[in-house]
């Protein structure tokens, strides 16, 4: 190890940190990019309808949109609240 390397070692390296943060962020943002613009509104309206009948909270419904080469899949997942025992129901529809 040269003398110069010794001084270099004492410096923290920030580039790997930047890269790691970027990779996570960009992956997250890309997953939203391909979604149709009406998705958040659909989610809200579905929640409103369900709330007429069942008392579910904001996080009880998830709407996922996935795109393959030749098909688009819209997945709805609604978690109904517990009654006495485990009565969680999940409905999925394509």
């Amino acid at each position, binding site marked *: 190890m040269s003398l110069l390397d010794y001084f270099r070692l004492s410096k923290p390296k920030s580039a790997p940190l930047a890269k790691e943060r970027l990779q996570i962020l*960009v992956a997250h943002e890309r997953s939203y990019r391909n979604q149709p613009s009406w998705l958040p509104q659909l989610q809200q309206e579905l929640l409103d309808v369900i709330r007429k009948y069942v008392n579910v909270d904001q996080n009880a419904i998830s709407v996922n949109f996935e795109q393959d080469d030749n098909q688009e899949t819209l997945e709805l997942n609604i978690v109904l609240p517990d009654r006495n025992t485990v009565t969680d129901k999940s409905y999925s529809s394509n």
Partner: protein
Amino acid sequence: MARIIVVTSGKGGVGKTTTSAAIAMGLAKKGHKTVVIDFDVGLRNLDLILGCERRVVYDFINVINGEASLNQALIRDKNCNLLYILPASQTRDKEALTQEGVGKVLEELSKDFEYIVCDSPAGIEKGANLALYFADDAFVVTNPEISSVRDSDRMLGILSSKSRRAERGEEPIKEYLLLTRYDPDRVKQGEMLSLDDVQEILSLQLLGIIPESKSVLSASNAGIPVILDEKSEAGRAYEDVVARYLGEDRPHRFIEAKQGFFSKLFGGKK
């Protein structure tokens, strides 16, 4: 038919106008009749970088509104008679730009020019959207810096969904990467994202790396595009970019850190 190039980035201050001026001059120097358009309505700066700020009479908005003809508004560059500048309006705001108006001007310019370079404003609002809407090629200007790479990735999403080519289902805009303000020494020390780091995220065709260079500021001080400074690394790097864009195969340079006197002395060789 002209080829329409948009110089874009999302983030401000990364070198869009410097790049637009340099590549437009480079294309013209190679014998291609080129016009460069400033889309930054309200904040025009391209005229300063090209040193023609005192010759601006009419602007892009005047042409769109029919208040001046293209011939009245176009400014011929003082260094190269194949290069013309269409300046932005300094007094109006971005709302004065319309898709129909921009389309008409570009169509008219297409008859007379080989290349139309659109210098996009920062951001993702109207000016930026219209600068890229009609493009055939996009030069995505990126700094090796976290917010710039993120914004570039966002721009790529917009290029692939909000352009005329996307709307018509035509072949998508060809996207190229221009990595600017690159400092190989800082990359070597682990303080700056490397070319490979940036490419791992953006994976674009690399047109060139423009090293951080004092000559860029000197060039803008003087109002002469940096590509005309053949002694500067940035100038030569832009010259490479233009040659590569036109299909020449040139090896990339300015990637490696220069060997300093002390690192040679102490054997800091990697």
